[in-house]
């Protein structure tokens, strides 16, 4: 009986670990394989404070959360600079270093001996010294920890995390501060993992570095992959399966050493088989039923998002003397541009003329070597992209960069401006504020989708859209930022003329409502049909500007264009 209860305690502890790990790898796409180190930090902090200083539960646990949160921030730093495989390697290295510290900082950690005699947790004078007595506490704490993780994942902040996972630049382009998001999710994930460590230390009454090695990280990783990335219920299921399954080996008469190795083989094989046959895990992130959107939403809301202002032609964006070189190559030189409210300005020129670079300079994705950008008189050059979005200028990408594994609705919803739910303070302490905002934002997002004609697709994943629909979603997402200045990078390329014609009125209507619009486009028919003014760029310089007709009629420009 005690044995069964022990297994349940371990399921509870590993559910905490798998859930918190899922926040990092599943929700945020940050493959930082050092989760066992956070687990260890929690366990060691608890052991040291409880044994060395006699602190009673829950103080060592709380201290562990703080310490692990700080360690999480430190381990999160590399994630600001490198991603993908590099992050995996760098964090595996950190995992090794962490274990080396646990083993070698003998005065603090007891070295290879570990720390024994960690006092049991006392509740109402009873020591929780058996699995049965410990289980209720373990389950309660696990439930609380998973609630914290779930709340984060289900909040607008969690939606922003998933957007960052899908495409970091696009998340920035809808106004998300990815640096802050990464650091926060690292700290939260590490803090939650340390809770499991604290419980573990009290429960086993002994901590030693061997419990927190890479093998443990891979073990937890297998739970997350098995259960399903981006789905916390999946992590609980994955933890349950991978704690219980190896126990079956106990019924086979094997030397303990072999049994342990067989367990590891099992995790490895499960990882491979899952990735091969069901990479989304047992419980996938996307649930069609839950994603369904009730009909009849979004009748209004567009007005509050984008209050129509007079299309008065006032200058809203001023770029002056912008320069950018890469190595020896000058990509953009002495570029000046004025964008005006209510007007559609085309940016044209041959391939490699520097059009996209010009957009990158305007929107902060590249820092100009010289020159300034003003939005409504305010200097924005030098700011991070998300701050320029908040100042009122947003851009789309030539290669779309949709959040492919998110629903159409969420692609738009995540882009809505000034969301209180992006802040943890609101998520945890003022949930009703977030809930009200979410209701309003659902309406606004649906209004945007209705505006471009995608409301019927709201509950579908972006990756299931047709190409034309993807292009519409790009427009919708850009519109949802609420920015006054919209920079479109080839919004119509690759579309057939019929579809193209159907998008024209959308863009025109935006201009009439007082948006400032700039479009990069190769198709001269589009420029002629849509733009009030065109700027011709070649070899990084502005060669000419004028009405589309005069530019297109100019034989010198025509020669440059078609050279």
């Amino acid at each position, binding site marked *: 009986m005690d044995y069964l209860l022990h297994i349940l305690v371990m399921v509870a502890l590993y559910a905490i670990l798998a859930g918190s790990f899922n926040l990092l790898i599943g929700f945020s796409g940050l*493959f930082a*394989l050092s989760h066992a180190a956070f687990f260890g930090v929690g366990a060691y902090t608890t052991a040291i404070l409880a044994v060395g200083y006699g602190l009673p539960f829950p103080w060592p646990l709380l201290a562990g959360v703080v310490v692990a949160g700080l360690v999480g921030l430190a381990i999160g*730093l*590399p994630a600001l*600079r*490198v991603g*993908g*495989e*590099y992050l*995996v*390697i*760098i964090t*595996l*290295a*950190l995992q*090794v*270093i962490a274990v*080396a510290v646990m*083993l*070698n900082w003998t005065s603090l950690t007891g070295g290879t001996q570990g720390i024994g005699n960690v006092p049991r947790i006392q509740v109402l004078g009873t020591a929780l010294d058996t699995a049965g007595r410990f289980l209720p506490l373990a389950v309660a704490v696990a439930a609380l920890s998973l609630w914290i993780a779930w709340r984060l994942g289900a909040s607008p902040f969690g939606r922003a995390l998933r957007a960052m996972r899908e495409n970091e630049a696009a998340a920035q382009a809808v106004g998300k501060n990815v640096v802050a998001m990464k650091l926060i999710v690292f700290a939260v994930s590490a803090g939650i993992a340390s809770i499991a460590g604290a419980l573990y230390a009290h429960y086993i009454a002994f901590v030693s570095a061997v419990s927190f090695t*890479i*093998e443990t990280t*891979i073990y937890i*990783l*297998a739970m997350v*992959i098995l259960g399903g990335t981006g789905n916390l219920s999946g992590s609980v299921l994955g933890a349950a399966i991978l704690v219980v399954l190896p126990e079956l080996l106990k019924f086979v008469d094997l030397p303990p*050493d*072999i049994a342990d*190795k*067989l367990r*590891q*083989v099992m*995790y*490895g*094989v*499960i*990882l*491979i088989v899952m*990735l*091969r046959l069901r*990479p989304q895990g047992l419980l996938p992130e996307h649930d069609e039923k839950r994603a369904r959107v009730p009909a009849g939403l979004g009748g209004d809301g567009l007005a509050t998002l984008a209050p129509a202002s007079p299309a008065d032609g006032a200058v809203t964006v001023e770029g002056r003397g912008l320069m950018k070189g890469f190595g020896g190559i000058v990509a953009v030189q002495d570029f000046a541009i004025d964008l005006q409210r209510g007007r559609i300005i085309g940016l044209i020129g041959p391939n490699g003329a520097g059009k996209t670079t010009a957009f990158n300079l305007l929107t902060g994705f590249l820092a100009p070597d010289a020159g300034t950008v003003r939005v409504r008189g305010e200097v924005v050059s030098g700011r991070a992209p998300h701050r320029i979005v908040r100042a009122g200028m947003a851009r789309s990408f030539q290669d779309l960069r949709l959040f492919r594994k998110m629903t159409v609705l969420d692609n738009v919803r995540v882009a809505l401006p000034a969301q209180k739910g992006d802040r943890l303070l609101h998520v945890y302490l003022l949930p009703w504020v977030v809930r009200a905002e979410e209701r309003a934002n659902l309406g606004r997002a649906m209004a945007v989708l209705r505006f471009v004609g995608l409301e019927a697709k709201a509950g579908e994943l972006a990756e299931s859209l047709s190409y034309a629909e993807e292009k519409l979603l790009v427009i919708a997402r850009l519109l949802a930022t609420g920015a006054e200045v919209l920079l479109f990078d080839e919004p119509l390329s690759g579309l057939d003329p019929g579809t193209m014609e159907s998008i024209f009125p959308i863009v025109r209507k935006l201009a009439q409502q007082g948006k400032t619009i700039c479009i990069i486009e190769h198709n001269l028919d589009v420029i002629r049909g849509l733009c009030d003014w065109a700027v011709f760029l070649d070899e990084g310089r502005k060669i000419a500007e004028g009405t589309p007709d005069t530019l297109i009629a100019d034989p010198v420009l025509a020669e440059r264009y078609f050279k």
Partner: protein
Amino acid sequence: MDLALQLLVNGIINGSHYALLGVGFGLIFGPTKITHFAFGPIFAVAAYVCWAAATKLGMPLAAAALVGIAASAAAGVLSYLWLYRPFERQGSSHLVVLIASLGLFITLENAIGIVFGTDTKVIADLSPDIFLWGPVVVTSIQLWQVAALALIAGLLAAFLRGSRHGKAIMAMTDNGEMAQIIGIDTVRVSILAFAAGSAVAAVPAVLILFKEGATPHMGFVAVFMAFVAVVVGGIGSFRGAIIGGYAVGIVENIGMWEIPTEWQSTIAFVVLFLILLFRPAGLFGRALR
């Protein structure tokens, strides 16, 4: 001063070992772009097969070494065909392939432990010559480690520059998509890269078996040192991997002067961490996109 000299020599010897690992790993990573964690246990396979051939079958050492190298090359090719290739065909991301590779890593490492046990396997009657050069002591195996690098690097350079297959590997390292467009059979080149890279790594594995013996866990250090060498030197450059290997070997050994021994194995990880953090393109490498 004598100590410093000895540490420097040790650094060069270990550096040769790491450089070979780096070259082997780079030979696979360059053209295939697969972060091949299972490189580690496949390295261990070479040592264990060599050990079994020498002690269980009584083969002469040189023949046993060749068997070990062949086994490693075969295991490398199988890992590609059975594990990585299906993922490639499925269009999985690099990250998914990497995680699968971690899965293979942990599976193989523990399978080796189950089959051979966890004790250190040594070739008992091996007594390397010991040379005293002034204050410096080296063994014949250590000299072999240095010579192996020189020999393999030379052969590899000739192969990569001179032969059609070698050029195909270089082309794919440079730009896989372009290589495919100009008609290079990228699957065959990948198979070749896995065979060659695993065989190259098998040589230091066999030498380590002669020097220190084999343990199931030996592959872990090997794959990380290969990473460190490649990352320090800059990805996509064999010269960089060699320089990187030497840099790590020397830093690690000179570090012993000041740093307590138990931290020695940590030095390389700290180096890896710092370089990836501050110079992700490596000290000598081309900038990465």
